C-alpha cells in the first residue's frame, strides 16, 4: 500500500483530512466531514471523495473500540502524516539570557571534559564533546530537578545510554553542584567516585550504563511506572548513533510505541561516527528518520549544538501526545576541540595536557 501512496501522492485535501483526523476525535466520518467542510471551506462532496481515497488506501478507519465509534488514523496513516510533518522544528523563541548561560556553561563543561580525560589518561573525548550541548540544555534549562535532592521522586529522569560520554555527564553534574568539583580530577581514579562509565552510586546518575543499547528499554520501564503513578515526569534517554546497531534498541522502540509512552523522549547524538569509522560505513543507519517514524515515533531533527533548536525540540516533545518522541540531534564528534572535530582518531585516544596547552584549552 505504501508503494501505491508514493506513486499517486496525496493531494492537499487529503493531507488536511489526515492532519485534522489525527488531532481531533469524531464519532463518525460523516460528522467529521461536515465539520471540516465548514472549517476549511471545502465542498462536502470533495471531502467525501478524498475520504474514500484515504479509506481505500487504509490510512483512516472507523474503529469500534469499547462500543464507542471513532474515526482514527491507521498505523500507516500515522506513518504518512508523521513523514509529512517531520521537517525542521518551528521557530521557538528563547530568552537571549538563557542562550548566554547555556553557551557559557557548555564552554566550562568542555574544558572540564578535556581536563578530566587528560588527567585520567583515558576516556572518550569525541563522543563526550558531541553530546555536551544536549546535556547542558537538558540539565540546566529543561529538566525538573532538585539539585539539592537528586533522588526527588518527582524529578525528570535522565539515562545516558551512550555511557562512554560519562565525562560530559559528570562535568555537567558538577556545574550544577550535585557532584563536588574536586571529584572531576579523580575521574577514573581508584580513589574517586567517577568511574569510566555511569554508575548509580554517583549522585545525580539515574541509571548505570556502559554496555550500549540498553538505555531505551530501561527508559520504557521508568516512563511506564511514572505514568501509571500519575507522576508528570519525563524520561530522557540519550543514545549514540553507533549505538543504534544494537538490536535491543529496536525492541524497545516498539515497546515504547505499544505503551504509548509520551513521557519518553529519546535524543540521538548523531555525530556520524562509531569506534571503527563512519556509521554509514559500519552498518548504515539511513534513512534514520524513516526508521523511527515507522516504529511509531514522533521525530524531530535539530542541530545538536544549537540551544534554541534543542529547547524548541524539547518543548515540542512535551506537546506531542499519544506516543514517544525521538529527537535526532545532528552533532560534530569532538566539537569544541579542533584536533578532535570530525576526527575519529579521538574516539577513545588519550589526550595529554601538553596537547591542551598547545591548543589553548588550558
Amino acid at each position, binding site marked *: 500500500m505504501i508503494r501505491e501512496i508514493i506513486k499517486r501522492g496525496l493531494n492537499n485535501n487529503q493531507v488536511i483530512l489526515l492532519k485534522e483526523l489525527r488531532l481531533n476525535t469524531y464519532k463518525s466520518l460523516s460528522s467529521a466531514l461536515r465539520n471540516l467542510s465548514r472549517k476549511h471551506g471545502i465542498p462536502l462532496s470533495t471531502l467525501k471523495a478524498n475520504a474514500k481515497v484515504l479509506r481505500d488506501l487504509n490510512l483512516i478507519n472507523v474503529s469500534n473500540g469499547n462500543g464507542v465509534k471513532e474515526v482514527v488514523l491507521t498505523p500507516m496513516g500515522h506513518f504518512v502524516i508523521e513523514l509529512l510533518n517531520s521537517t525542521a522544528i518551528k521557530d521557538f523563541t528563547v530568552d537571549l539570557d538563557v542562550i548566554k548561560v547555556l553557551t557559557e556553561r557548555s564552554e566550562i563543561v568542555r574544558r572540564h571534559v578535556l581536563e578530566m580525560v587528560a588527567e585520567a589518561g583515558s576516556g572518550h573525548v569525541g563522543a563526550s564533546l558531541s553530546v555536551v550541548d544536549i546535556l547542558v540544555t537538558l540539565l540546566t534549562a529543561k529538566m525538573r530537578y532538585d539539585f539539592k535532592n537528586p533522588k526527588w*521522586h518527582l524529578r525528570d*529522569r535522565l539515562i545516558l545510554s551512550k555511557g562512554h560520554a560519562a565525562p560530559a555527564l559528570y562535568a555537567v553534574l558538577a556545574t550544577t553542584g550535585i557532584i563536588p568539583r574536586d571529584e572531576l580530577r579523580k575521574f577514573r581514579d581508584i580513589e574517586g567516585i567517577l568511574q569510566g562509565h555511569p*554508575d*548509580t552510586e554517583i549522585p545525580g546518575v*539515574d*541509571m*548505570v550504563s*556502559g*554496555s550500549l*543499547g*540498553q*538505555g*531505551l*528499554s*530501561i*527508559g*520504557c*520501564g*521508568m*516512563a*511506564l*511506572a*511514572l505514568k*501509571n*503513578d500519575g507522576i508528570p515526569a519525563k*524520561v530522557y534517554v540519550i543514545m549514540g548513533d553507533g549505538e543504534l546497531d544494537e*538490536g*535491543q534498541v529496536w*525492541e*524497545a522502540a*516498539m*515497546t515504547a510505541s*505499544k*505503551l504509548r509512552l509520551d513521557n519518553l523522549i529519546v535524543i540521538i547524538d548523531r555525530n556520524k561516527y562509531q569506534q571503527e569509522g563512519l556509521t554509514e560505513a559500519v552498518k548504515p543507519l539511513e534513512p534514520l528518520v524513516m526508521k523511527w517514524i515507522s516504529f511509531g515515533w514522533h521525530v524531530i531533527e535539530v542541530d545538536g549544538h544549537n540551544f534554541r533548536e534543542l529547547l524548541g525540540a524539547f518543548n515540542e516533545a512535551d506537546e506531542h501526545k499519544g506516543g514517544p518522541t525521538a529527537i535526532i540531534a545532528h552533532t560534530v564528534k569532538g566539537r569544541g576541540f579542533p584536533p578532535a572535530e570530525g576526527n575519529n582518531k579521538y574516539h577513545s585516544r588519550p589526550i595529554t595536557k601538553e596537547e591542551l596547552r598547545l591548543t589553548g584549552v588550558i
Partner: protein
Amino acid sequence: MRLTFGRTLVEIGLTYSDLYVVDADSASHTMTSLFAENFPDRFVNVGISEQDLVGVASGLASVGKKVIASTYASFLMRAWEQIRNTVARAKLNVKFVGTHAGISNFGDGPSHQCFEDIALMRVIPGMKVIVPADSLELRGCLTEVVKDEGPAYIRIGRDEDERVYDECLCRLGVANVVMDGSDVAIVAIGNMVSESVKAAKELRNVGISAAVIDSHTVKPLDRETILKYAMKTGAMVVAEEHNVLGGLGSAVAEVISRKYPIPIEFVGVDDTFGHSARSLGDLRKFLGLTSSDISRAVTKVVRER
C-alpha cells in the same frame, strides 16, 4: 510448578500494590497470565524480546516498583549481559523467574532445555539463586524473595513436580534437611530432591544411611548446614538437573574443598546438551539423572570415604 507460580503471583499481587510482572510473550506458558488477568495495569508483555524484558523490568524497579520478570530459562539467559550490567550493577529489585528449566521441557529438545542458568546467574555479584524442590517450596520461596531487596533468580520446571513437602516454610539461605543420615549426605535441588529421597530410601535397604539436604538457595549457599553434614557423614553427593560444571555441585565443592575436604560425587548433566524425548523418564535416564544414578554415586563415594 508454573501453575503454582501463577497462583502465588496473584496472592503476592494482592499484598503488594507496587508489584509488576513483565513477561516476554510466554505468559500462558509461564502462567504469569493469571497475574495479568487480575492486575492488567501491572503486567507488561514486551513481546518476544528478552533483552527488552530485562530493561523494562530495570526501569520499573528504578522508580521503586517490585518487579518479577519471567520467561523460559533458556531464553532469559540471552539477556544475561543486561542482567549483569544493569540489574546487578545498579542492585535493582528485579526477581527473575526462569521457567521450563532443567529437563522439564523434555519434548522440545536442547534449544529449550536449560542446564547452564545456575552457573551463569551464580557468578553475578549480588545475585541470589533459588531452586525450589516442589510447588509448596516455590510458593514459600517466592513469597520470601519478594520481601527481600535486590536481584534474585528463581529457577523452576514446567510441570507439577513430585511432592517433597506437606508444608514448607522457606527461609532464604537456610537449607532444609529432608532426611537425616550418617554415612553420606546428598545435597540436591529442584526435582533432584525427590529423586534423592527415593535413592536414600533404596539405600537404607543396603545398609547405607543417607541424609538428603534440599539446598534451595544455591546462592548464598547455606555453608553451615553443608559443613555440618560434611563433618557428620564424611562423604557427599550433589544432585541437580544442571551441568555438573558451575552449578550447585561447584558451589558445594567450593565450600568443602576449602573447609573440610571429603570425597564428593556429582550427579548432573555431564557437560552436554539434552535431547528430545517422549517422556521425562526417558530423558532422565538418557542424561543419568535418576534415583539409581544417585544411588550409584553414593555407593562409590561411600567406598572412597
